[in-house]
């Protein structure tokens, strides 16, 4: 019993700290930037009309706020989709990015962007998400087809990486034959960034991400059972086939959202679920799912802050920053799991 209260306490402390962290990161994201705005002014802008019509007002309300909302929501989406994929394959070393799912989304989206902008003008946010969702499902389908043929996780990961290469190559091909102005956009986007998000985008992101996240919360019980392996899960009365389909759809939708609005973002999907388990010292989905969402949001807020301020006014690609912070975590994970199995 003592152990249980200790665990509950750890949970409460963990969530409080994460929430505080997100709050601080949000404030920092509004405050820090190439335009100098004092903290006091930030609060005035947010809560009074004092700066109505001023440039700083626009900067905070139309640039920084939507951008940080996008970073937080998409970061959460990355964390959750990574967790879902890791649960599905029962392997801590995979995420939509590693399995080529993000690259598939990127490919289809690039294709659609080039085709649609040539014939119809720009693409709307929703259609971008749908295009990359289709792309996610295509490469996910291919990965699953391979998963049916081999039970070997290492081979599956390699296949995923190969799919990633193929899709990236095709994307490059598309970009090569795109028009000059599209190239600039596509290249920038294919590197990944949260910049240029407006409130309309945020609404679409929130719609998709929050719906999908709510969907995953409904799967808490089966996810927990699935942790014991497919055989046990089925023997405990779970419809494994239905569960698998739902997990695939949800994680693809989440990662598709990220790709549509921020481009492919590496390492968050792998590192965040693992870090969350480390923080809470449990793998209970009822804790890890919301935990991954919060930590993903925090992680991306901080990374985005670094990306846009460290070499300001030059902005870094978000992938650059997440990789620098995420890669060491992955390496530590690999070494740790190696030590455990040895």
């Amino acid at each position, binding site marked *: 019993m003592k*152990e249980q209260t200790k665990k509950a306490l750890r949970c409460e402390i963990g969530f409080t700290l994460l929430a505080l962290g997100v709050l601080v990161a949000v404030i920092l994201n509004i405050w820090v930037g190439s335009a100098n705005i004092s903290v006091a002014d930030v609060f005035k802008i947010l809560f009074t009309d004092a700066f109505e019509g001023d440039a700083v007002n626009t900067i905070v309300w139309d640039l920084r706020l939507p951008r940080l909302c996008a970073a937080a929501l998409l970061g959460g989406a990355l964390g959750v989709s990574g967790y879902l994929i890791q649960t599905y394959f029962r392997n801590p070393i995979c995420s939509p990015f590693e399995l080529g799912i993000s690259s598939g989304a990127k490919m289809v989206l690039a294709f659609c962007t080039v085709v649609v902008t040539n014939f119809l003008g720009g693409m709307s946010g929703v259609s971008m998400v749908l295009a990359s969702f289709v792309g996610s499902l295509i490469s996910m389908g291919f990965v699953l087809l391979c998963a049916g043929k081999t039970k070997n996780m290492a081979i599956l990961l390699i296949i995923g990486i190969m799919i990633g290469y193929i899709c990236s190559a095709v994307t490059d091909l598309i970009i090569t034959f795109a028009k000059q102005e599209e190239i600039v956009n596509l290249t920038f986007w294919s590197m990944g960034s949260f910049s240029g998000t407006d409130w309309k985008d945020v609404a679409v992101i929130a719609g998709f991400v929050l719906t999908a996240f709510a969907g995953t919360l409904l799967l808490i019980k089966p996810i927990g*059972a699935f*942790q014991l*392996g497919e*055989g046990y899960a089925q*023997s*405990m*009365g779970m419809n494994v086939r239905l569960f698998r389909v739902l997990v695939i759809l949800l994680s693809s939708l989440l990662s598709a959202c990220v790709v549509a609005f921020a481009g492919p973002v590496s390492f968050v999907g792998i590192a965040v679920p693992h870090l969350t388990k480390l923080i809470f010292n449990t*793998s209970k989905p009822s804790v890890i799912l919301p935990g991954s969402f919060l930590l993903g949001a925090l992680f991306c807020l901080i990374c985005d802050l670094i990306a846009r301020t460290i070499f300001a006014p030059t902005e870094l690609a978000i992938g650059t920053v997440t990789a620098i912070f995420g890669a060491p975590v992955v390496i530590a994970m690999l070494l740790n799991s190696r030590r455990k199995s040895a």
Partner: protein
Amino acid sequence: MTRLSAHDLSVGYNKKVLIGGIELEIDAGEVVTLIGPNGAGKSTVLKSITRHLDLLGGTVYVDGEDAKSLTFRNFATKFSVVLTERLKTERMTCEEIVAAGRYPYTGFFGKLTQGDREIVAESMALVGASELADTPFEAISDGQRQRILLARAICQQPQIMVLDEPTSFLDIRYKIELLGVLRRLATEKKMSVVLSLHEIDLAAKISDKIVCVDGDRVLSAGTPEEIFRGDTVRRLYGLVRGDYNLLFGSVEMEKPQGTSRVFVLAGGGAGISVYRALQRRGIAFSTGILSENDVDYQVARSLATSIVSVPAFASVGEEDVARAAEETERAGALLAACRKFGETNARAEQLIALAERSGIPVYSSAAEVPEGSTEEGKDAE
């Protein structure tokens, strides 16, 4: 009524039938064990019963109802399993693993009620693993893991428990404990237990019924007494070298080759260790004068080239000593494993005296028997 029955079952992988025509009947409170060589299809049969593999033909009935018609959840309240696949968990305590067994009974979000918690604690106590509740599953030994998995299966409160080789990786103490718990579940809680085992000796001791699975068919099924009569085990496992003693459930190695080089005077259990020592050194031997209800006789049957024996409870007569003397002379050496002689084997003393008189070497332990020299000596003569 029969709790679980299988009628004309065909099982296999990828639509290819491995074993066909399986008939099984299991009552409440019965332990049924599948035995058979590696790769014979024991797991395939079990997985087909638990719906982990699609049936390729036939029907499984649970309480007279077709198992196929049960929902996943209903099925889970009737069956629970202990599988061979090794559990890969991350940061889960043993209690959490056991509690997972409550899955078919908990609500949409899987929250445990007080009643559920009591059942979890009870299940852990039943397998003697209460003190492991807060320990991470990764941190415990194989034997403890198997107990936790058994507790999980108990926690699911099934009518039928299916276990695939639950004793692999376990040392002898855990084996006995685990099978003891299964036997108790069957006898006290009227649970039906179906399992596969490699240890045929243990199978004979805990099972009400034994099913021999051999490659493409079920060789035979019946009570342990029926199955272990005759040479079913030798046939089932294709045992050509070595022997399996059904009475003791013990394994003997291959009989040493060649003609007997020493006659072992044994009886009352004194011979067994000598026989085994001679076998290890590859020295062929004959033995006597054994009563047929002597423990030595059981092992001698597997290891000795020839045995001079008398019927059970009969006393050793003059002619038996003569036969033994003949054997001794042919072997060219005598090993007296026992030096204590009572009323029934008083005549054995005669044999030693006889050997000493005719200059045949008399040893008192297997180590004294020279390496191959007897044979060479005989050749020289």
